């Protein structure tokens, strides 16, 4: 069992490294920022405690079983030898092997009665938690549509369409309606909530609520094709007043600064193929295959949580999206370097 002790130590070290506090843990279920995820984290530590105790006891029993001095039931009672069929006993056939000192009583007590009690407890715990985590009543709704490999985010009441970012007000539950435009995806924001699938068949409902302001990373958790790994999103929880401001700003058409570079960028945008797939509200760009770019300038990331949104990354992404996210559906755009710069400036200006 020395190895087992070493094993436990090893586990402890790993655990300490998980719980170390030098990290931001923006995608960790053990660092909850919401009631729901905190409840689940609590549930985990309870389960961890129960299961560690059970595992320890079983291994201790196994250790004792193989290490303790030789024992058979014959030590106490010579009559206890393995039995043969009553019909053949008469013919003198008898097994001379001694039996184990432990019999069925031990197996029944430790293998049926004890687990039954523990498992009933876990069952009640589980159903209770599931009940506690029933979606709360709320008036705020966000609709998320999964695409290969990005998230379309709609605020139906506020008439806002955005992508790969969900803004929510701190402390208020937001109903999230999930559906998919192609294959099955799954929305997972570990710090806030367990995951829920996005199916093309039906609308699933979950909710998000953050108890403190912050950025929480989410990721697609159902294998959905070649770029499943890079289908991230960001949940941004803002204090109520900032949230209202964000909503108000996004309800307005984008206000592009009217400098020369930007207007040249707009010309490039509409002269090239961009508008076939992307939409910008208030313009003739109404494509739906790619993310809506109406307020592109105010987004925090590009490429579905892939890169910070700045001009350099934007230029890199537009000039060769296949290098950064191989297999994604955005083709390489052939734009002259100067035009590229202008295009990026235009997109950046859409705030």
């Amino acid at each position, binding site marked *: 069992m020395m190895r*087992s002790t070493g094993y436990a130590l*090893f*586990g402890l070290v*790993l655990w300490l*490294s998980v719980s170390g506090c030098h990290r931001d843990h*923006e995608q*960790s279920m*053990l660092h909850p920022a919401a009631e729901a995820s905190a409840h*689940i984290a609590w549930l*985990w530590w309870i389960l961890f405690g129960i299961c560690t105790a059970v595992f320890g006891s079983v291994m201790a*029993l*196994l250790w004792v*079983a*193989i290490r303790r001095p*030789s024992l058979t039931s014959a030590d106490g009672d010579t009559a206890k030898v*393995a*039995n*043969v*069929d009553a019909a053949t006993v008469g013919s003198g*056939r*008898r*097994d001379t092997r*001694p*039996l184990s*000192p*432990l019999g*069925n009583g*031990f*197996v029944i007590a430790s*293998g*049926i009665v004890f*687990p039954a009690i523990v*498992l009933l407890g*876990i069952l009640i715990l*589980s*159903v209770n*938690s*599931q*009940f506690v*985590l029933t979606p709360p009543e709320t008036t705020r709704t966000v609709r998320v549509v999964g695409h290969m490999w990005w998230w379309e985010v709609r605020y139906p009441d506020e008439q806002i369409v955005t992508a790969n970012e969900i803004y929510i007000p701190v402390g208020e539950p937001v109903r999230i309606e*999930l559906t998919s435009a*192609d294959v099955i995806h799954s929305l997972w924001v*570990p710090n806030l909530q*367990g*995951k829920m*699938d996005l*199916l*093309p*068949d039906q609308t699933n409902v979950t909710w998000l609520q953050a108890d403190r302001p912050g950025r929480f*990373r989410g990721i697609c*958790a*159902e*294998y*959905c094709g*070649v*770029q*499943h*790994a890079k289908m991230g999103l960001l949940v941004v929880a803002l204090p109520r007043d900032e949230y209202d401001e964000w909503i108000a700003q996004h309800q307005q058409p984008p206000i592009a600064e009217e400098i020369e570079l930007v207007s040249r960028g707009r010309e490039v945008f509409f002269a090239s193929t961009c508008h076939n797939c992307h939409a910008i509200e208030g313009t003739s760009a109404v494509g739906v295959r790619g993310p809506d770019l109406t307020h592109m300038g105010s987004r925090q990331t590009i490429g579905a949580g892939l890169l910070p949104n700045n001009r350099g990354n934007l230029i890199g992404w537009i000039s060769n999206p296949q290098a950064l996210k*191989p*297999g994604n559906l955005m083709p390489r755009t052939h734009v002259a370097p100067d035009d590229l710069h202008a295009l990026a400036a235009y997109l950046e200006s859409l705030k």
Partner: protein
Amino acid sequence: MSSDSSSEMRLQQTWAPARGFPGVLAEVNNQIIGKRFMITAFVFFMLGGVLALLMRIQLAASDNHFLGPQTYNELFTMHGSTMMFLFAVPFLEGLALYLLPMMIGARDVAFPRLTAYGYWLYLFGGVLFYASFLFGAVPDIGWFGYTPLSTSRFTGLSTDFWLLGLSLVEVAGLTAAIEIVVTILKFRAPGMTIGRLPLFILSLLVVGVMILIAFTVLLTATVLLELDRATNTAFFDVERGGNNLLWQHLFWFFGHPEVYIMFLPATGIISMVIPVFARRPVVGYVLIAAAILVTGFVSFGLWVHHMFAAGLPALSMTFFTAASLMIAIASGVQVFAWIATLWGSRPELKPPFLFALGFMFLFVLGGLTGVMVAVVPFDQQVHDTYFIVAHFHYVLIGGVLFPIFSGVYYWLPKMTGRLFSDSLGRLNFWLTFIGFNLTFFPMHIMGFLGMPRRVYTYPRHLELDGYNLLSTFGAGLMSIGAVVFLYDLVRGLTRGEAASDNPWDGDSLEWSVSSPPPNFGFIRFPVVTGRHPLWQADVTEAPDDSALGRLREALAFEPQTWRGTMVTDATDATPQAIQYLASPTFVPMWAAVGTLAAAVGVLAQAYILSAAGLAVLIISVFIWLLPRESVMRRLRESELPASTGLPVLSSGSVATGWWGMVGFLTLLGSSFAALIYSYFYIRLFSPQWPPSGSDLPNLPLGSAAYACLVVAGVIHCWGMSRFRAAAESSARAALVIGSAVAVGFLALQGWDWSRQNFTHQSHAYGSLYFVISGTLSLLVVLGLAFSLTCLKRIGRTDRRDLANVTLHLEMTQMLWATISVIGVLVFLTLYATPYLL
């Protein structure tokens, strides 16, 4: 003595393996085919392991560029599919086919040609799978193949490789299951009553039945998906009323039992190894038996716990939480029974036992994380993360691979006649055990820190690099373990000491034959008097003055000129008959080649090839199943019935063929249950049924058609009773009339098809209607084939073949009875449901 040795030589000649090049293709003996299964499975295991290593290298560091996303997705798909379908189940089937007859005192398995057919299908299926690499169309949909990603809208040829390769392997699994179940029920040595089965055999019996049900459901699901892809039906097309969750339900209804299909035989191995190393009988035999039975059943009631994040109603998930938790009791019983058996026994830490201990450690850990993920809210966090990857590798490597290693080290001396190195075995154990924990323990934590499954890379800022590097290092250690094992294997085979017949002082019958055993296993059948036969003083002997003792001597070296073994009662194992077993033949291989051609034809959309393949398959099956005159003559002339009182031709529940038919009918039932389930599932989520524009089914026409089926079934049953009453001409008349009525069904059904204003492509309703009634019609054609071949034999064969003709007619009648019952259910589903629901 000299007569003994010449008898033995003749026996050896009869059982000699086929030699030479084409000869090896004709082999049907269970030991040889069993070894082929194991070796092939081991090769696939190595391939799957290499794929895993490549994946671990890619994941060793964040934002790594060793493999691209496409390649990575292909590798994890192939890795999962290989380990599940091409390694674990086939290896255990191979081990079972090899050991089964020896452990229960028989000479071969019940249907030797079916063994060979199963092996060829498995090999062809596996090769077809890997042939996708040659065509640059490697499956990339995951081992679970979720729709709609696996539909033709999103994937091409690669998914066809996956589906068709898989289908062949599934059919191979089904053949092995029928083989295993019937052999255990009918070939046990006298005295090995149902209460004295070695626990490995008991677990195989339960697993065989589980395979018959679970694999059939998967086979049905894969056929539906392939129909969607190849013929544009709409089962999984949302636009046309199909449903994607249907695939998940069908897949996991197979997928969860699959885990126990691998795990139960593994526990069976442990239950064989532990008493031997504890040198005492297993504690709680009855409790273990009950636990195996309960596990077998309950494993079919857990499938939804793979779908806790799919948006099902909260209440219906709770029932599956309960079932998923409670199955742990059944596993707990086994663990504590083993601990009780070992209590104070001072076992020697030899490789088989070390792996058994390692199994207990890893399996208990994996089982406990399994209990955790039954808790819905917790599962919704860790579902599809590396926590789950860790969990199921603990259960599958810890719970299946470790027992397999334990069993391999335990039985290798028997299989090869050589002893293997204890120290190399220990080295392999420690490398594998430590490597395993280093690889998979950190994955629990990666899951918590937000690493989802099936990602080819992860960003640096998640700070997962350390864990992943550790994990990759562990994987390296494990592969060194595998190399050590291979070296040990080669060293033992070439330079190992000769093994005695019973090197571990084992208790079960396989240790009573020589190492390596002759192809026929036993010269004289053993007589069993307890659960641990070899530990009982004179166990394989029966008192010479008893009827059993005289039978034993009469059957020593017999039958000599043809392969045969003794058939006993399913419960009490009292002798009932002697069974003829086929000699080497090419027929199974041709049947498998035909099956492969049919599959490849679909793959290449060269349907002419499919048709040719089907033709070869059908002809082979006819040659296979119809009795050959040369064989019948030999059986008629046999003196064994006179000398032993046991018939060489039998019918009813005495005959293995009868039980094989029961297995086949179970499989049919399971398949139609899956189809009817699909119907109601799609119905549940459809707003209008039938969809607008399609007429309600024609009730009078449907009633007439399906009444024909019931009448045909009744007439066939009546014919059976006339035949039993020796009224052969009325039996013949019954077959003729019954068949005619069944043809009437086909005509009416065909007329109903032609009347419909929709096709199988119009909507899911149309797909269901045509595919379910079409499958039933195919079944009716099969029934007709049985009736007509029967008709040819009744009253026209030698009276001494009567039992065989009876069996043929019994099978026909059973098939028709089943068709009638299925027909009524299909009628209620297709014709009555649209009016009622």
